[in-house]
């Protein structure tokens, strides 16, 4: 017995659907090849566009206006794009994750290309700051750091928990440029410090202090992660008392 033939109408419908899908696909292709602005893209921007479509557009939208998965990039600015990409905070594996520092997914050249493309796609926002930590005033930097940064990042830049389940990260791995960008853009719950509140010279001073701490923080010995009394208590009990108890245990009677 041969298979029952499908009715004519059904075949027609299937053909229509198939045709429609093909048309939609072609349309999508044509749309993605459209010139995005009146000016032609530079080589850098084209590379950036390619990377953007592959890694960013799902959440931030093809036009950078954002989707329900991720915010609009308008007004984010090159400093923010460079910051999140060079610290590996973006791209996220899952849109709901909290961005944390990890190895960057892109090379420096690719990051520069993405910065260039997003600048074209969504203009505005703070530019990547120009920094010169070598000229920073150390004492001023220490005071500014203690007044404006230490309450969350810790007096020893060790990082700490802050409210709402967030963690202000330790500042030992970030490059000076990344720190400067974070200051200007205020990622996550961090407030943004504009140039009016914190001049470029102030920023250089803070960077100078943080870099100085990295080289000169070990006065007095091991720093125990610079987290203060928690680590000190642990060392006193486990190492200090532990050693002495070991001695009395070895030299004393046990029954």
């Amino acid at each position, binding site marked *: 017995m041969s298979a029952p033939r499908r009715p004519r109408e059904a075949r027609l419908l299937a053909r229509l659907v198939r045709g429609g899908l093909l048309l939609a696909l072609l349309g999508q292709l044509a749309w993605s090849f459209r010139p995005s602005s009146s000016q032609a893209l530079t080589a850098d921007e084209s590379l950036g566009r390619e990377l953007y479509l592959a890694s960013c557009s799902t959440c931030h939208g093809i036009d950078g206006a954002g989707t329900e998965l991720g915010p609009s990039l308008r007004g984010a600015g090159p400093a923010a794009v460079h910051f999140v990409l060079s610290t590996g905070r973006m791209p996220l594996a899952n849109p709901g994750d909290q961005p944390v520092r990890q190895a960057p997914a892109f090379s420096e050249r690719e990051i520069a290309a993405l910065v260039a493309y997003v600048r074209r796609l969504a203009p505005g926002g703070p530019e990547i700051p120009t920094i010169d930590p070598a000229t920073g005033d*150390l*004492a001023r*930097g*220490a*005071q500014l750091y*203690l*007044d404006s940064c*230490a*309450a*969350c*990042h*810790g*007096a*020893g830049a*060790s*990082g*700490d*928990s*802050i*409210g*709402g*389940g967030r*963690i202000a990260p330790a500042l030992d791995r970030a490059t000076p440029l990344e720190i400067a960008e974070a200051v200007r853009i205020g990622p996550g719950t961090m407030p943004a410090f504009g140039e009016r509140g914190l001049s470029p010279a102030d920023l250089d001073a803070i960077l100078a*202090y943080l870099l*100085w*701490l990295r080289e000169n*923080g*070990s*006065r*007095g*010995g*091991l*720093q*125990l992660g*610079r*987290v*203060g*009394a*928690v680590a*000190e*208590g*642990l*060392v*006193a*009990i486990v*190492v*200090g*008392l532990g*050693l*002495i*108890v070991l*001695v*009395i*245990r070895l*030299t*004393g*009677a*046990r*029954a």
Partner: protein
Amino acid sequence: MIVERVVRGLDERLDGGSFLRRNLTKVFPDHWSFMLGEIALYAFALLVLTGIFLTFFFQASPEPVVYDGPYAPMRGRTVSAAYDSVLRLSFEVRAGLVMRQTHHWAALLFMAAVVAHLLRVFFTGAFRKPRELTWVLGVLLLFAGIGAGFTGYSLPDDLLSGTGLRIIYSGVLSIPVVGAWAAFLFFGGEFPAHALLSRLYVLHVLLIPLVIAGLIGAHLALVWRQTHTQFPGPGRTEDTVTGIPVWPRFALKALGLMFVTWGVAAGLGGLVQINPVWLYGPFVPYSAPSPAQPDFYAGWLEGLLRLWPNWEFHLFGRTIGTLFLPAVVVPGVITFVLALWPWIEERVSGDHAAHHFAQRPREAPVRSGIGAAGVAFFTVLMLAGSNDVLAAFLSVEVDTLNGVLTAAVVVLPIACGLVTYRICRDLRDGGGHPIARPGRARVRRTAAGAFEVEHEPGGPAR
């Protein structure tokens, strides 16, 4: 020759010989766990020595001065004379930093040893009649130690210590009716008052050390008079005491232990940073550092404050502030229960007899259970006092951690207490040690080439 004549002369006039003979042959314990209190004694001696060194350089003055020392990040900043003197002590005085750090490490060792000693005495029932008074003196020493530590780390006038002082100030303020007056009386006015540093200084270098020295003296005099407890064993009875004589064995061993304690404290002081006040910066009233924890022995108080619900209520037209219960009432109740424990246990157990044998924890399952619950309670509170550091370390949300700790502070003591009670009771009733010593065989080869096997049977663990 001369020494002999001097000694003989003194002996003939003062009859010192019999006094010395009586006391130099007095026996002292040899069991390792009885040395914990000694560690605290030697740490205290080191604290006095290093502390005297520090007083040569420290200035307890809030007067503003401009720092112009070698620590570059603070140069040109207006700080208090106290903070300035601590930076100078740390960076300019020869061996100043190692002395300061050794002093602080010795303080932590002192408190750690006091707590360990307290636990040993508690779990072995060594506080029982007739040694209740020794116990009370010990508990007073514990709290005098907390006071000494707190006033000590408040002296450098850095941001961290100022934050701690403000918490205490607020705690005093929260006492109903008299709070405001008491705070002004003790702190010399609105926080941060001008008189505060000099008061803390007198407390830290004069009053509290005198109190501690007096308490230690009385504590030891009682131990000397009443003799120590001992674990039961062959040839030991409730009426005799065994151990090693003060001279020469105990004294020389004690001297050795003193140098070990000092060596560990000095080693830590030279190798491991503690309380780096130059990182925290001078105290300014508008700021607070993070992470901000007290030294570990005050960690449970900090934990109480961090976990306590935000309760505020009104009684007789007075507001009972949020801080009153966790900062004043609960620590007060804990202090009283701890100090009066020997009598509480006597009353509840109905055991009014004198005891000179120390117990093994299994012999008093209820007490051991309560002790374990207490250890769990204070441990959870200490963790809660460091919740921000812990949350960052574990990469969890600090609010989640607080929830877990709030539950743990109730559940964990009960669980630990019950489990300990069961283990102790079963051990006591079972008699033996849960882990048996395995039997072994010794194989010996004779000169002729033959082998001899000697069996050694297993049995209860030693």
